């Protein structure tokens, strides 16, 4: 993995973490991305804490150092604390997370590892717990988080060691 950034953003500083990053070079996608990202975090039907569970599971599997360090304040306000975050390991099935939270993590793992391998039993458990709109929300949230964590890795310049935890707001 390259530890040097592959592009230099070289943009005027707006104070917006997205617009000032390399993503700001692709001007046509910035506003649509920010609006979609806002909807994922604010417009439900899943809570921000539930979305954050999937985001952090993805961050750890993709090994995006930035994504792993971030905690969104909206998720903390919705009830996600560090005691829960610490349970998002490969042994989460043995954790004290709720069954609903574990289903979110299993679905995320299917996306990341083998999306064609979902069992009939798991599909049934998911539909018993989640509405169709919630399954769509979870799927799009995983897709978006995965898209931009892989983007961060692909652009290079990723620190080799973990960063301190950073509590931030969802970029607007």
């Amino acid at each position, binding site marked *: 993995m390259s530890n040097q950034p592959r592009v230099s953003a070289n943009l005027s500083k707006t104070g917006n973490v997205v617009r000032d990053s390399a993503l700001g070079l692709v001007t046509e996608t910035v506003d*649509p*991305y920010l609006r*979609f990202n806002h909807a994922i975090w604010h417009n439900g039907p899943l809570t921000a804490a539930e979305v954050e569970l999937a985001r952090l599971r993805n961050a750890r599997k993709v090994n995006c150092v930035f994504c792993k360090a971030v905690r969104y304040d909206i998720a903390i306000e919705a009830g996600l604390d560090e005691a829960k975050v610490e349970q998002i390991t490969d042994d989460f099935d043995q954790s004290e997370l709720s069954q609903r939270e574990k289903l979110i993590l299993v679905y995320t793992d299917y996306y990341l590892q083998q*999306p064609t391998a979902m069992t009939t039993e798991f599909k049934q458990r998911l539909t018993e717990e989640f509405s169709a709109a919630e399954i*769509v929300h979870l*799927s799009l949230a995983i*897709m978006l988080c995965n898209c931009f964590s892989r983007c961060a890795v*692909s652009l290079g310049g990723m620190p080799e060691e973990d960063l301190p935890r950073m509590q931030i707001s969802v970029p607007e």
Partner: protein
Amino acid sequence: MTWFTEANTQQDIIDKAPTLAPTFKAFYDSFWQLSSAPPSLLELCRLRVAQLHQSDYQWQHQQIELSTEKRQSLSQWSKSAVYTDAEKACLAFTEVYCMDPQAITDAQAEAVKSELGDAGLVALIEALGLFYGMTRVSQLWGF
């Protein structure tokens, strides 16, 4: 029809989340109007992602019309003369991206940048994330 709804297409399923569907569609559509990465080039990469995932659903979808020759030769793109240097650089990048983005080399990124510039590399990386994600989501949903 999939396992959690009677909707028949990926877009119809996304419409089951009406608070998200319009912003998702606007985000997806924005990639087909880029000045830094031509739509036909992105369509080739989208189709290569579909091939690597063995996703017949995404392969059958046509976002942008390509020549039959370019579609049919895609799995053998590195040996084919029908693709431009820019297309070959992006397809090489696409293949490594799908396997492991940590394995992308500086040379592969430079090859894309030399054809499309910095903005083009970023656009390609974002677009690949979207195509990779849409393919995996369609597989999760049983397509």
